[in-house]
């Protein structure tokens, strides 16, 4: 239980904030007031086992065995990433935007994190094994990437009471961010020298600021569209389309920008430069200068992580006890692969349902998920689930973790 709390804590902080893929669509007509609280958290990787990440995050020795098991999964694309979103939404059916009573008003507040990374096999090898076993080889670090964004979103929007389709405009307050990307970067080691080609760029916000930071401002547009139709057998179906985070973030002038394009060869210190010289002649070796990293401070405009998803969502009030579900999602970062899933939804009673799903893509590989839904007197709705039960259960075979929770209160 304690571990579960820790995992949840981690997910709440480091998981990446993306839009939750809806477990179930409840109402076709809604004109009251509702408060939604949701927590959507996951991280995933296609190469790092949970035992590795647990040690990395919570402390402990990463043994050679653990490193070897990770190395066995390294390939051309080694992704790691996640999202965490903690969100409050209030649907108000008593206010009529555009003076039309078919619309209601949404006010939302969310705390969002996104981490997206891609590590070349050779970079992992150099960082965790060193170069001793790679003499006379060229280690290619190119196209490794890391991105982190943390921001708050305060949104106001309009929703359609009959479909719950909505359009929200949000002010995004940037808390913290950094990004680094290596281009043509490699290292070649011999007994006598180490050659290092270092080409890349990146930025980071001021790391001395607190959790909320307030180091940038931006704007985001979120579209949520529900399309209902009947199947050939006459059953009502719903297709949900989401386009989220269409917007920009302007990080403030304290943001550090880095760029490097240098080729260095290190053969050790030449003692002739240091011996038999006066103090004024003594050479001072500056490693940072040698690497040739250029830095400056200034504002930076960066895109928010745009997310797109389309999914067939089960309906609570369907005449079918057993429904299928399917979907597709993508995040526009270089490290996220198209995410597909499919599964079944079963509702044995009017107040309880469960769904299971198999997914592939995103930051990880194949995952198996389970979700439970509970309604209390049509006033309160709870949902608890995970998109990666194997990850929750196993350190050795899991490649990430996921946990989602949401609660709706009809006021």
């Amino acid at each position, binding site marked *: 239980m304690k571990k579960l709390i820790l995992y949840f804590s981690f997910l709440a902080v480091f998981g990446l904030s993306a839009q939750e893929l809806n477990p179930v669509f409840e109402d076709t007509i809604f004109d009251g007031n509702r408060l939604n609280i949701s927590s959507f958290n996951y991280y995933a990787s296609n190469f790092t086992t949970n035992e590795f990440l647990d040690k990395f995050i919570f402390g402990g020795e990463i043994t050679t065995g653990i490193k070897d098991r990770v190395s066995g999964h390294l390939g051309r694309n080694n992704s790691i990433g996640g999202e965490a979103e903690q969100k409050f939404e209030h649907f108000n059916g008593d206010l009529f935007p555009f003076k039309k009573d078919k619309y209601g008003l949404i006010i939302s507040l969310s705390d969002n994190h996104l981490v997206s990374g891609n590590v070349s096999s050779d970079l992992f090898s150099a960082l965790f094994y060193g170069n001793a076993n790679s003499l006379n080889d060229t280690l290619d670090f190119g196209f490794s990437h890391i991105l982190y964004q943390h921001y708050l979103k305060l949104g106001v929007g309009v929703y359609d009471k009959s479909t719950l389709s909505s359009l929200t405009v949000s002010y995004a307050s940037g808390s913290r961010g950094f990004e680094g990307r290596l281009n043509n970067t490699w290292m070649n*080691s011999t007994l006598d020298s180490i050659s290092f080609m270092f080409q890349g760029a990146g930025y980071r916000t001021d790391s001395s600021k607190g959790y909320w930071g307030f180091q940038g401002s931006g704007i985001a547009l979120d579209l949520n569209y529900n399309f209902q139709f009947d199947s050939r057998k006459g059953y009502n179906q719903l297709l949900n389309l989401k386009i989220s985070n269409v917007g920009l973030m302007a990080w403030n002038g304290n943001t550090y920008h880095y760029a490097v394009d240098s080729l260095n060869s290190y053969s*050790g210190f030449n003692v002739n430069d240091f011996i038999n010289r006066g103090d004024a002649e003594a050479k001072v070796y500056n490693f940072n200068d040698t690497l040739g990293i250029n830095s400056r401070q200034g504002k930076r405009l960066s895109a928010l992580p745009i997310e797109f998803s389309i999914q067939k969502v089960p309906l609570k009030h369907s005449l079918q006890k057993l429904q299928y579900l399917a979907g597709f999602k993508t995040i526009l970062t270089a490290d996220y692969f198209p995410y597909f899933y499919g599964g079944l939804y079963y509702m044995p009673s009017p107040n309880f349902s469960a769904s299971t799903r198999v997914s592939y893509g995103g930051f990880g590989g194949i995952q198996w998920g389970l979700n439970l839904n509970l309604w209390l007197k049509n006033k309160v709705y709870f949902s608890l689930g995970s998109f990666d039960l194997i990850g929750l259960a196993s350190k050795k075979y899991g490649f990430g973790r996921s946990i989602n929770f949401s609660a709706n209160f009809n006021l």
Partner: protein
Amino acid sequence: MNRLKLISLLAFPILLFSCKKEPTSWDTDWSAPIAYGHLTINDMIPANYAETNGSGYLSLVIHESVFEFSLDTLIKLPDTTITVKTAIGIPSIEVTPSFSLPDNYDQAYELGEIELKRVIIESGLAEATIQSPWQGKTKITFTFPKVTNPTGLFERVYYLDAGTITSPTAVNDLIDMAFHDMDLTGIDGNLYNTLGVNVLIESNEEESSFLVTNTDSIAFSFKFQDLIPRYAKGYFGQYTFSDTTGVALVPLKHIVAGSIDLDSIDLTLTVKNGFNIIAQAKVSKLTGINTRTSNLVDLDFSEKGTTLNINPASGGLYDYVPSEYPLSLNNTNSNLLDFLENLSDSIIIGYQLKINPFGNTTAGSDEFFPDSKMELFLDGEFPLEFGANDLTITDTLTIDKFEAGTIAPRDALLFLDYQNGFPIAGDLKIYLLNGDNEVLDSVFASAPIQAGKYQMDTYATIPHTGSVQFSITPTAFDHLENTEKLILFVKFNSDDNAEVKISPETFFDFKLRTNLQIRISL
């Protein structure tokens, strides 16, 4: 309820980090070059200390002053104050605007046996103080007729307001005396240690007159402080200096074992006299002490214990040339080789020096020139021809305590790949000591650095190519955190323990690389 949930969510991250009981760590193995170099004899000693001798191999040469002293402390002018009160010689007088009262004085310095005629000041100050009770404005001019400075004659003029006997008016002036050329023969030019000064007292009133009585004395003083001469002429007195003193040869104290065989050495000890003064010198004792072996060797040479007459320097103030009295020492006219092979780390020197041993025979013409000194100068040529037999040198280095941080070495193998062109082998050991000088650990080379093969006929050496390893264990790295000193032992042996000569082309090439296990802790 909702607020409680939000607070709970925010509390989770805090719980998360507080639950990290140990750092994340992993081990990595790195292979990296550390250093390289091509060392010749000129990289080990300054180039002007080594030269190729007539036989085509290297000699260490020394041209250094080993002992010196100056006379400026003897003829330093003591702090002196010229204090004079002057008054009219009649009961009273009416001082009109045209009134003037001239006077002059010869002020003598008390310098004991020293009789100075001329001094040029290197540095020092004069503080002038004038007090006047005259009841009208007064002008006082001090002229030093035989003192000049870079701007001309040394003269000071002071203007005083009206005063009274109970409340005299006063003026203070601080004068930099550097580069003042002072003739100390007095106003008439037939004295010594005497400074002449002319004083002119005048009314500074434009129209009015005032009355002065013979009780209205004007007092003035010149206080000379910290005067240091850069040139002096006169008779400096008769002195005898003698002492027996010890000199520690600190570099040789690092030799803790072994011996060295030398072939031939030429030394010239020169007594240089930079003063225009007659002197006599005598070296009475020159004993080398090896405190490690408690062995003493007296250096014997023909001039030892005899009085040497040292001629005065020639030339003048700006072109003086020191006189020289050379003493040539070699292995044929002295036991210099025994003296040096004793590897003495201390030397006892007994000497005697007499200044003006026959009194004032130059009629006061002794001269002290700027920067002139009496010195014992060593010109030595040490041909690098020697045999080393387990010659062991040690040195202690104080180091900052090592603290393992994010990156901590755990285990290391250092490889020294070398090409040794010196006909000398070396073996290195390093000991780690704590603050109480207790040995914590040690690092040894896997084998000595082998000597190159010496070619007796050409003095050339066929380089030896080899590699030695140093293993630094995790325990040694742990001990580094408590290490405050390193002791290095290097043992040298010449090729076949024979005498070898060092060629100018001799070199030592090396590359130092490591296989290092690093523990990274975050």
